[in-house]
């Protein structure tokens, strides 16, 4: 494995994207082109990335582990942590313009778009997993429990896993 090239390909995919699933198109193009990965490794890593702790983007760590073992996963962790540090520079500029209505409007507008995309992407993944009354019930019950804040989310996820494994 050409590790500097591997690191650059992963870093580039994260640097020119935003959000958890953002690096997917770039990674897919490069890893297939270099012959480092097949389609199965992408789908497996994306599925595992949904249940592991931490941000959605950690599917990249799972993917790099499947492709290149532990060294690949470590390089992926490093590549994931570097680009977000730009936020420190962004924040410095933000302090100067923080109280302007246009700044608030800009950020609120971006948040509204992000929320819209989040719901669409997750809904598409839910549909592609196979949507039936059982899954819909889990969606509604999980949302209600999360909203009530009476049960920890880990317990909600664990219960869903047990129900899924038993009921099928």
């Amino acid at each position, binding site marked *: 494995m050409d590790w500097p090239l591997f690191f650059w390909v992963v870093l580039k995919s994260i640097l020119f994207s935003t959000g958890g699933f953002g690096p997917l198109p770039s990674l897919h193009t490069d890893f297939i082109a270099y012959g480092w990965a097949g389609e199965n490794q992408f789908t497996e890593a994306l599925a595992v990335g949904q249940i592991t702790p*931490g941000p959605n983007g950690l599917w990249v760590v799972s993917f790099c582990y499947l492709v290149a073992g532990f060294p690949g996963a470590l390089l992926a962790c490093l590549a994931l942590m570097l680009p*977000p540090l730009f936020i420190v520079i962004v924040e410095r500029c933000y302090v100067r313009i923080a109280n302007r209505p246009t700044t608030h*409007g800009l950020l609120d*507008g971006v948040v509204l*778009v992000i929320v819209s995309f989040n719901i669409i992407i997750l809904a598409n993944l*839910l549909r592609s997993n196979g949507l039936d009354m059982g899954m819909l019930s889990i969606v509604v019950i999980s949302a209600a429990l999360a909203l009530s804040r009476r049960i920890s989310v880990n317990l909600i996820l664990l219960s869903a896993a047990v129900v899924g494994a038993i009921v099928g």
Partner: protein
Amino acid sequence: MSINITGGEVDNNSSSHPNPLRTDVSSDSPTITQLFITWLRIGFTSFGGGAVTQYLIQENFIHKNKWISAKEYTRLLGMSQITPGINILAMTILIGKRLGGRMGIVVALLGLIVPSAGITIGITATYAGFSEFPQVKSALRAVFAAIFGISLVTNWRNVKPIFVNNRKKGPLTLFVAVGIMIGSGVVYLFFNPPVVVLYLIGGLCGAITYWRVARKTKEE
């Protein structure tokens, strides 16, 4: 800017200039150790990806410890969208810096990433050996449905302060906010343009609307 006992610069705006976004927060600042433990707890327990991670950040920093306000969280969330890479990591850096300066950034990143990446690697290795079992597939499917339900709550919490604020500004502003959210979704679904373009358009619509409202208020 002040220095806390653990040596980090704390960007908390001095008490002589109170931050209007921090009106419903606790007066006790967390120590670096408290911050590290909190991030570690999130890193170890946020099974379910970004939606659950965000939910736990909200729970720990806004509701339980009251270290930041919901309004401030929304601002940080907005800021974290305009930086490359994983948005939650950018927000983790911002929260860490706000509460613990440079050391706050270090403990936030390490506390969140080291346990979650370690568990991710462990689960990936395990999953690779058991992925063909039907029970494993069914369990994963059900877990994803639960993640979707939790993400609906998380996303609602993200947009609620914006809708509440816009309703106070008037029906037109609220209409624009709802329009940005629905309109961007429709454009994304039917035309699939680069997402960055839609971020820019959504942000621009928000900026123009807020600017017009501010100018109108000033004139009155």
